[in-house]
């Protein structure tokens, strides 16, 4: 495992290598070099199984983290490649040419996070949602509870009490704060 890192560290500027498990490593790569790193890992290092691609919204840093997890089925090791993209523009190079199912992941990210992958097939088609006109729902600033309460007629008539407040009110009715 370590010799892979030695090799790729020279060519691709990777940082923050975290050994999470005995055969699972995470590393960070620059946005521009990510797709070529993945291509390298696939073609040269034998990471032939593409596990998943997903995003994490670090809204406080104005960044999206994209995580590609690749698996080498022969050596039985996994590499998680993190890359950070700007949250405002949210565009990333497509990797659909490497594996067929990457396009599906990218389509989902486009819909649920609003991250664009120019050139990816059918990336603009709706995948899961239908007729969605709010901000992409997986973004952190989308408040799902608020949306649900405003939209879906929750059954009325429920009211709960906080034990501490209720007891103060009951036991010391003439106290006021």
């Amino acid at each position, binding site marked *: 495992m370590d010799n892979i890192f030695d090799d790729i560290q020279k060519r691709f500027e990777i940082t923050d290598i975290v050994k*999470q498990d005995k055969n*699972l490593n*995470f590393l960070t790569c620059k946005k521009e070099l990510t797709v070529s790193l993945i291509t390298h890992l696939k073609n040269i290092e034998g990471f032939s*199984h593409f*596990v998943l691609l997903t995003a994490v919204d670090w809204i406080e840093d104005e960044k999206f983290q994209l*995580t590609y997890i690749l698996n080498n089925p022969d050596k*039985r090791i996994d590499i998680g490649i993190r890359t950070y993209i700007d949250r405002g523009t949210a565009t990333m190079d497509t990797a659909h040419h490497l594996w067929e199912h990457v396009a599906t992941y990218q389509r989902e990210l486009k819909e649920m996070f609003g991250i664009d992958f120019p050139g990816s097939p059918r990336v603009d088609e709706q995948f899961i949602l239908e007729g969605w006109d709010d901000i992409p729902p997986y973004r952190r600033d989308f408040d799902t509870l608020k949306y649900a309460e405003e939209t879906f007629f929750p059954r009325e008539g429920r009211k709960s009490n906080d034990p501490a407040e209720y007891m103060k009110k009951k036991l010391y009715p003439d106290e006021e704060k």
Partner: protein
Amino acid sequence: MQADRSKYPELDKNGNPIVDLSSQKYTKIWQGPNHPGVTGNMSLELTLSGDEIVEAKTHVGYLHRGFEKLMERRLYIQCFPTCIRMCVPEADSNEYVLAASIENLTDIEIPEKALWLRTLVLEMARLQVLLRTVPGQASTLSLGLGGQWGMYLRDLILDRFEELTGGRIYHMFIIPGGVRGHLPDGFKERMEENLKGIEEFVGKIENLIFNNSIFKKRTVGVGVIDPSWVSKYGIVGPNARAAGFNRDVRKDYPYLKYKELDFEPLVATDSDIYTRNVIRKHDLITTVDLIRQILAKIPEKGDIRATTPNVLHWEIPKGETYQRSESSRGEYGMYMVSDGSKYPRRINLRGPSYTHAVSLLEKMLINANIADVHSIMVSLQTCPPEIER
């Protein structure tokens, strides 16, 4: 099977068919979501020329609940009842990968007995699913009898689940830190009786289904997955094993107690519907054997749950992890990111159906006969809720 391409459309330079619906040469039909011939609530948009498919598109999202969003506003312990609904037929893999992810990030040591019980529950879940899908493959060709038998036996396993875990479908048994109960009295004996029934059943379906000339005619050589597609489409589990790749998470990345159990997954090369079903039947036999081994090895005494911090304010250290398990459909994984707070930053689930039922199915259906669509879908064992979550 080399199809006659003369009646098919021209292909553009990317290899996509140019379909002009107004030319009256093609028919577009929708299969699902309200159609008896789809697995679960999803739909296929099929473009046909005659009875052969020239273009297929999978449409999902009918079961989208936004789990990954919902779990961002739930405590870790509250994620546990939530996440298991991500794949309905085999809910236990969800429980396990969530618990494993949390435990991987926190380094909790799980008691021995809990590990065995988890293994037991996962294998019982696999058994329960396979009892549905193995004869279910024949049901797609209206050979429903095996399916009726299998469903009854599955229900008996659900009874065992009910005894052990308190639930029939959603067991909510593998909780972060351990499991939620000991083996009830007499469980082993009742389970053994069910396993005997299942073995008898496997013998019967051998004759009823696998030697059935109708079944063979309709499945041998149909729905072939080319071995070169396995890495290209991210194929895992029985579907990959049928194509000659020995991929089994239980063997490759032994988790729980699989290292101490003796089993060997079957690998075949024909890679058609029939072979995939043979692989699944072998899995069924393996699972019966595994459950016997587990029940023999499970310790009588011991704790079922490790000591964890108070679950109401359990903060998981900052970090990220990916944990996988072998569901009946193949590699089932969870990617979890924690920012050090009480709530997960992000949970992403990688279900096998995500690739099987979308990109792979779209590819496999081209040139297929419309009558085989259902068989092909079932042979990939697609589970729509894990695609859209």
